[in-house]
């Protein structure tokens, strides 16, 4: 699951995650983040570096 807020600055970033994930299929991630108001690089790495693993974990429930 995407962390609720940025680890460094505390800005809520998870509310744009789903839109980000959909849009980066066809658009450059940097531009999408600009559009979504994710400005600082601490917040940008939260989205850029996130790997969703809940569905992998579910197999071992």
């Amino acid at each position, binding site marked *: 699951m995407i962390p609720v807020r940025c680890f460094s600055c505390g800005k809520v970033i998870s509310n744009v995650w*789903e839109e980000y994930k959909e849009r980066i299929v066809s658009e450059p991630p940097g531009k999408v983040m600009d559009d979504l108001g994710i400005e600082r690089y601490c917040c940008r790495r939260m989205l850029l570096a996130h790997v969703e693993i*809940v569905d992998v974990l579910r197999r071992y429930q």
Partner: protein
Amino acid sequence: MKVELIELREDRIRFLLTGATAAFANGIRRACMSEVPTLAIDEIRLYDNTSVLFDEQISLRLGLIPLTAEDLDVYSSPEDCICEGAGCPGCRVDFILTAEGPKMVYSQDVVFTDPGVKVAFEGIPVVVLGEGEKLVVEGYATKRTGSAHSKWQSGTTCGYKNLPRIDIGDCQKCGKCVKVCPRDVLALDEGDRVRVVNLLACSLCKLCIDECDYQAITVTPVPDSFVLTIEGDGSIKAKDLVVKAAEEIRHRAEMIGEKMADLS
């Protein structure tokens, strides 16, 4: 003391404070971060959680969701409440959260007993539930300040810098400073020397000074002027955040005044 607005957004305010000390500017910054109260989910009881996340992870995620209240003043913090911290409707807002998979549980699925209390952001994913997985949570939010825990921090990103002052003397128009400046503060055009086009963006890094072969440029901090940038967590408007922080400082100063008067 003078205040000049530079930028105002719902979640961020930038202003220029002149005629103040660094201690005062920092006082405003610190009060925004740790003395302006807000609501946050405090304690939860999990009746059922068969999701992939541990109970503690659910609890952490819920705590980090910023909450807004129509009227925050109706709540007191547990320490100042008539119940003396035991817990009562005056200092607690109860909520429930129930969901059954397959479903993504979002912040807006958290339902408070007070309809005036809401999550500040919809669409924060709390946990994804697979087929047959269940989540049943009940709990309450309390009002506290950032000094208790960062989840009650109303001001998240708050900072200040001295207002820069850039003087250009015997400039040869070589353009090296313009090229090296990472913030595009300087520009080279018609005049007989480089021009400052974006003073507020200057971070006082002084790269331009090192680059100039003629010692023509100097950058100095103006000691009594500060550019403050205050960003809230979404539970309060940035403008109100600064006002409340200033009120808190005044309140404390008055308290010290009274104490001192008692002593003498």
